């Protein structure tokens, strides 16, 4: 309200000869009225929509897998180290007993659990290491002379039951290694290659130009990934020409189209395409645009996201695989320690692996600088009990034998097949005594931690297709420490013994890229992702859209895992194979007709529409 006593006068009239001055009225910005609401807003609360928004926004994953472990105990050996020797699955118990007890087995020995005299401790006993040596969860925490006193090898700690043999992590592919030296053998012809990953895929000319056939045939030791009409850029050249169109695939052999490609023999002369010429090639989709459409080849590298303490490995209920346990009774007189027991050659239990910590992929990019669409369950052999040493790494094409022996790639002296997993060792008093108090190490692989990096699969990437293809899976090879368990009584050399292979990285898809390729210019199209590839020929960006979570297209591409607690719960079944490189069938084992099946031939279960 206006104060009625207020008088406002001109400045010149305030007193005699008052100057003219500016006057101000302080007007408070008081608002006693309200603007009309410009327009009301109303929003429908749609629970499904909110759920989907939360789902698309979430970057946290809680992956789970069920491991079905397929292990084939196929390599026998001998040991004089009593904790190992006394716990084998014997394969020649009678023969070993005759030598170890030259005086026969006395009555005293049978009744008092004391080995009868004389016992010759230097006689090696033959057999398989028992299944607990490879099991995901060790339960042999109460074996006197091995895991508990007296004269024990280690003092078993139950807290480590899940990490004595294997350790489990989550990893993701984060970069490529183009400079890895690789080695492969063509199993039928025994030709071999040593090349660098980025060179491409190796080949050998099967039918050369000198064969005067209509086509020149090339064979690869791994799937070539080519289609008819595409081109190959060879490491060899005919004059100035090094790129040739693929005219057909395969020969008369079944399945050969994946390994053999042919180019038209238009009358090439000279020695370029002579039979058994070796080299490498790169795939080119369109020769007119070779810069954009040539493939690159590399080793995918993984980074570990979790610590071993994060992993929670438990029995998957009572589930067992169809092969069952393989056990037998070791008769007391036919054991070196005169103790009857049941020995286990193979087990059949399944396991569930989850993690106590969350996997947040926010800010993570894959090895092609795209959003992460796959995580990997990384399982690493630990071998804490010391049966093995010097684990090696290679790829699936290294698992074939070379002249009936392990490939030279696996030789102990080949540094290219070394892993970067640190190896440690320990001594045992009884171990030292076995070798007249000369300390001899028991080796094991150390645990990994967040940020550690490992090699992965051998892959091909094509910018034009925006597609990555796994050429060959990464493999680790476990080899016995010959000091403690000798498998050397075979054709392999001492530095390159047979072993077991396993695939350390098993993928779980957490989202998907579209099966179509988007194309657009930066001027006309908004929302081009930062991982798009710029094609210099078409002057357009090319990329694959990332499908939203929960969307599966008509081809079945996409993921629809549970989403709750604000987190994604991806799940996958994993068949984990520990595959022997070869068989080492013992004398009495073959005669009783228990030659095991080859588990490498056991296919993954088929999923059809009924399922």
């Amino acid at each position, binding site marked *: 309200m206006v104060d009625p006593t207020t008088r*406002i006068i001109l400045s010149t009239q305030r007193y005699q000869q008052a100057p003219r001055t500016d006057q101000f*009225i302080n007007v408070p910005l008081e608002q006693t009225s309200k603007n009309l609401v410009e327009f009301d807003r109303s929003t429908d609360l749609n*629970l499904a929509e909110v759920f989907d928004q939360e789902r698309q926004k979430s970057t946290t994953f809680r992956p789970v897998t069920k491991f079905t472990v397929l292990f084939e105990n196929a390599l026998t050996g001998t040991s004089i180290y009593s904790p190992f020797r006394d716990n084998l699955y014997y394969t020649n118990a009678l023969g070993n007993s005759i030598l170890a007890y030259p005086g026969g087995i006395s009555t005293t020995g049978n009744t008092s659990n004391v080995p009868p005299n004389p016992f010759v401790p230097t006689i090696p006993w033959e057999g398989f290491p028992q299944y607990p040596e490879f099991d995901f969860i060790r*339960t042999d*925490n109460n074996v006197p002379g091995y895991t508990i006193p007296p004269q024990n090898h280690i003092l078993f700690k*139950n*807290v480590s039951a899940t990490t004595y043999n294997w350790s489990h992590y989550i990893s993701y592919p984060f970069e490529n290694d183009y400079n890895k030296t690789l080695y492969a053998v063509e199993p039928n012809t025994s030709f071999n290659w040593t090349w660098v990953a980025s060179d491409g895929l190796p080949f050998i000319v099967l039918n050369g130009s000198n064969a005067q056939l209509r086509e020149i045939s090339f064979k690869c030791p791994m799937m070539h990934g080519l289609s008819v009409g595409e081109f190959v850029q060879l490491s060899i050249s005919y004059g100035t020409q090094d790129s040739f169109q693929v005219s057909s695939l395969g020969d008369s052999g079944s399945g050969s189209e994946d390994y053999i490609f042919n180019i038209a023999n238009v009358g090439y002369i000279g020695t370029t395409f002579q039979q058994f010429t070796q080299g490498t090639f790169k795939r080119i989709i369109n020769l007119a645009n070779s810069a954009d459409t040539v493939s690159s080849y590399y080793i995918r590298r993984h980074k570990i996201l979790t610590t071993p303490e994060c992993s*929670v490995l438990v029995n998957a209920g009572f589930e067992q695989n169809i092969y069952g346990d393989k056990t037998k009774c070791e008769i007391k007189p036919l054991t070196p320690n005169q103790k009857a027991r049941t020995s286990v050659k193979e087990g059949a239990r399944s396991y569930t692996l989850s993690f106590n910590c969350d996997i947040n992929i926010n800010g993570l990019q894959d090895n092609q600088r795209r959003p992460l669409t796959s995580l990997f369950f990384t399982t690493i052999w630990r071998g804490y009990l010391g049966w093995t040493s010097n684990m090696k790494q290679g790829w699936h094409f290294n698992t074939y034998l070379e002249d009936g022996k392990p490939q030279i790639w696996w030789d102990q002296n080949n540094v290219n097949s070394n892993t970067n997993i640190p190896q440690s060792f320990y001594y045992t008093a009884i171990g030292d005594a076995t070798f007249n108090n000369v300390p001899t190490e028991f080796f094991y692989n150390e645990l990994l931690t967040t940020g550690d990096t490992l090699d992965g699969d051998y892959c091909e990437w094509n910018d034009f297709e925006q597609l990555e293809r796994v050429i060959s899976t990464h493999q680790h090879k476990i080899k016995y420490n010959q000091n403690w368990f000798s498998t050397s009584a075979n054709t392999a050399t001492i530095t390159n013994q047979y072993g077991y292979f396993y695939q350390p990285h098993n993928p779980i898809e957490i989202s998907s890229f579209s099966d179509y390729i988007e194309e657009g210019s930066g001027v006309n199209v908004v929302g081009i992702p930062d991982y798009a590839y710029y094609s210099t020929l078409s002057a357009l960006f090319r990329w694959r859209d990332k499908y939203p979570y929960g969307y599966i297209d008509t081809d079945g591409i996409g993921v629809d895992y549970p989403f709750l607690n604000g987190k994604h719960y991806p799940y996958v079944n994993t068949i984990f194979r520990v595959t022997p490189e070869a068989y080492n069938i013992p004398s009495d084992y073959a005669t009783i007709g228990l030659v095991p099946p080859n588990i490498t031939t056991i296919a993954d279960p088929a999923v059809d529409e009924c399922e």
Partner: protein
Amino acid sequence: MNANKIKIVKADLDQYVNIPINMTWDFLGREDSIEEYEVEMIKEVIGSANDFEIARFANNIDLNQDSSINYDFYFYDNISPISAVTVTSANWGISYLNEGFSVQDVYYYSKPFTKSFFKLDFYDTDDEKTQQIFLSIILPVQQGLTETVTLSPTLPPVEIKKPQMVLDYIGDKEGFFIYWLRNREFVDINEFFMTGKFFDGRLGVFVQMTNTPQTQITPNKFNFNNADYYYYKVKLDYNTKTYEVFSTATNLRVGGATTPIKWYEYVNP
């Protein structure tokens, strides 16, 4: 500046000066902020996803790297009335036979025996007036060590279960792990008070248990401060996903092989 030429004369009416605040621009991001507000309101109305996922907490290893947790359950032998002055702590023993089960019940796993169980309840406080129960762990009687007894004079001695449990990662592990919320935003608690009870499937009753033999309870074995004798303290470590059990009397860690968690049957007068 020129002196203004406005002359405002006095009047009895309220007068106003209209000062136009001319805006030739819009508030930057007004639409965004409205949308943000909208999201906030939706969140307020229908809530957001809380993380109710659980984590597995295991008993922390001790100085000997032993991870096992040991429970000894003592039952009163009922030889003398509980009110008798001759009753000593020796009247409590680690045997189901004290509780009234027969050797046959235990050896042959009779229904009343197999339906019995131990129940460990976890509360947020030991104040019974305000406490809330947050979780329970059931220990089945099929777990545990064994004792040697005579089933029949004509048969050799047999081994039957006794209420002494060594729980670990492998072997007997039912009740070894505590499964509790991994996210502390919803319920932020890292200390529980654990009570022990035994459900007697033979009688269909719960038997309350104390952490001290009743004869040693003060000031009176029937009249005492419940907070002192009914509980053990369980502390969770969210970083290592482990737990440790402490005595409420001594505040020392218990549960190891040499310091088992002891529960004694409480007998009403």
